[in-house]
């Protein structure tokens, strides 16, 4: 056993996985080789087309073998119908021991990924999160090899360092032409930005575009160029548009969430960094969306404009853009139909590669230029460590998202969280799973007050700025005690020694592991 820099006990090896303990944020890499890619130079098919006879035919032609790695992007979210089709064909072809490597959380049902784990089609998973029946199955110990979870910024780094080596990438597209140019911006199943598919297209050994909407050559816009694509597979249906991107998210009516959101907007405007040309990332969810709307009001009042916003785009940000409050939206993902359409409608709403968004080991991720970044959390502890993966019973709830990346790179990283959800305390003495190190968190905003992290580099500046306001400043310990006085002391979750999930930090070190839950 070794202890990492956030005090987590880790085994030195988990099966074949060698644990490199987390040492602290912002570490240089011990790496001097060229970036890894499996891309193979190939002669363009002359004149003809790359359209395969069927998806099955495309998979056979790709040469996919037992034990290889297949990847998917998550831009169709809960509405994805591609993963299920591909895995079913893999099973029909008798493929075994595959590594399943989606770009984020997938929770597809009918069929569920767990079915393919149980029959041995999949033996390894690398993702950003798992949940539903797959999450339950993994925590019950149904996989021999641990699932590896990474943040948005960590995945492209892992690919370029050969830790995640993709053999066949399946890229779902709402429109594609017969030579492989494709996009998520048009077509009945439009999902907007394909930011998460780019690194897979650039580095996989074989790239198959999967679409239900074959358009006349050349497909324009082309988020992914034909030069990276081996085959195009046309299927009847790639997804459920209702679940891909619902309409514009409305302002929540929950007064507690509004209260936290209003405090968040006040914190940002009280900062000396809130001035013309500032940048922010709020994200999706009830509190972030309300915070965006409140921030927009304050920007209007004070006549301040933002230079850019980043990451997942919502319709509220598009509204701000159209009012002239934001100059550029850098969009790696579109959270709703308005945001998805906006990329073709507005030249300054830009589809960007997820690596450009969040990977610190590119020569410049946009996050490094960000002033204010919001993070969600399931739990925060008195060391400011954040858990975004596991719920109150230890169950897998969500994905890492870009949380660890935003925390590390934004000048001011803000966690917005209610102190309790129902009877589940969100501010605890020790998070069940550490996903984001507390040292990278500037503050926690709750309905019961704002706790600044005394260890954060900008602590003095933030304290000075916030003390000028009437916002209630408290210590994180006070918030924890308040949560405990309301909820009572929860019984600790008991685990066995078996490690089911490895949580990697941005640099590939292990920040935590999740062990099998004792029943």
């Amino acid at each position, binding site marked *: 056993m070794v202890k990492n820099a956030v005090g987590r006990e880790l085994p030195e090896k988990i099966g074949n996985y060698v644990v490199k303990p987390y040492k602290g944020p912002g570490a240089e890499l011990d790496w001097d080789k060229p970036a890894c890619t499996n891309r193979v130079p190939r002669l363009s098919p002359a004149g003809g087309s790359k359209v395969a006879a069927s998806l099955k035919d495309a998979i056979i032609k790709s040469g996919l073998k037992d034990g290889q790695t297949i990847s998917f992007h998550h831009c169709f979210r809960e509405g994805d119908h591609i993963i299920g089709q591909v895995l079913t064909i893999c099973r029909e072809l008798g493929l075994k021991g595959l590594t399943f490597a989606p770009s984020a959380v997938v929770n597809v049902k009918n069929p569920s990924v767990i079915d393919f784990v149980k029959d041995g089609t999949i033996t390894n998973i690398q993702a950003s999160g798992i949940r539903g029946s797959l999450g339950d199955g993994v925590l019950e110990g149904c996989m021999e090899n641990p699932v590896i979870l990474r943040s948005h910024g960590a995945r492209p780094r892992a690919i370029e360092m050969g830790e995640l080596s993709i053999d066949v990438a399946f890229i779902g597209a709402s429109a594609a032409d017969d030579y492989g140019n494709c996009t998520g911006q048009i077509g009945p199943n439009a999902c907007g930005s394909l930011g998460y598919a780019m690194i897979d297209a650039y580095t996989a050994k074989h790239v198959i575009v999967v679409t239900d909407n074959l358009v006349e050559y050349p497909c324009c816009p082309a988020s992914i160029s034909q030069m990276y694509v081996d085959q195009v597979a046309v299927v009847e249906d790639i997804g459920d548009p209702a679940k891909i991107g619902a309409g514009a998210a409305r302002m929540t009516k929950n007064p507690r969430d509004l209260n936290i959101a209003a405090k968040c907007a006040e914190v940002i405007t009280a900062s000396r960094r809130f001035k013309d040309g500032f940048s922010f990332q709020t994200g999706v969810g009830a509190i972030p969306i309300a915070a965006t709307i409140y921030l927009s009001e304050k920007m209007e009042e004070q006549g301040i404009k933002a230079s850019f916003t980043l990451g997942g785009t919502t319709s509220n940000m598009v509204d701000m853009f159209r009012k002239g409050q934001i100059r550029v939206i850098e969009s790696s993902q579109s959270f709703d139909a308005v945001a998805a359409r906006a990329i073709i409608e507005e030249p300054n709403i830009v589809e960007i590669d997820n690596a450009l968004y969040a990977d610190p080991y590119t020569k410049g991720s946009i996050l490094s230029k960000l002033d204010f970044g919001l993070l969600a959390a399931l739990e925060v502890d008195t060391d400011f460590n954040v858990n975004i993966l596991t719920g*109150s*019973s*230890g169950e897998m709830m969500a994905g890492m998202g870009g949380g660890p990346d935003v925390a590390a790179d934004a000048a001011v990283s803000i966690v917005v969280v209610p102190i309790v*959800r*129902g*009877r*589940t305390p969100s501010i605890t003495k020790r998070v069940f799973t550490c996903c984001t190190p507390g040292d990278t968190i500037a503050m926690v905003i709750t309905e019961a007050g704002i706790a600044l992290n005394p260890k954060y580099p900008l602590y003095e500046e933030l304290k000075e700025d916030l003390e000028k306001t009437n916002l209630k400043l408290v210590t994180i310990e006070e918030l924890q005690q308040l949560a405990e006085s*309301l*909820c*009572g002391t*929860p*019984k600790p*979750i008991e685990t066995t020694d078996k490690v089911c999930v490895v949580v990697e930090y941005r640099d590939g070190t292990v920040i935590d592991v999740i062990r099998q839950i004792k029943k």
Partner: protein
Amino acid sequence: MELKKPAVAGTVESCDCQVSIFPNPGQGLDVSVESNVKAIFGDSIIESTKDELAKHGVKDAIVQINDKGAFDWIIRARVACAAYRAAEQKFNWKEVE
């Protein structure tokens, strides 16, 4: 206090709990819990239910708790209310401190 009929108190709204209580003459207490926080608070819910019933002199009852994340003092209020409804008695507030 003797229970005369089955009774219910509370709702299945978030942060509330629904307590169903049944007479169980001479058979002691039988408390069962369904809850989204059963893993961390299941034992505590059973303990508080038994404690609250003892406080009001209920020795025999079958209690089913459908908890939606209620705080301890809400659970206790619901249990007490259900017990008095089942006993067809009015609680005497002069008894409390």
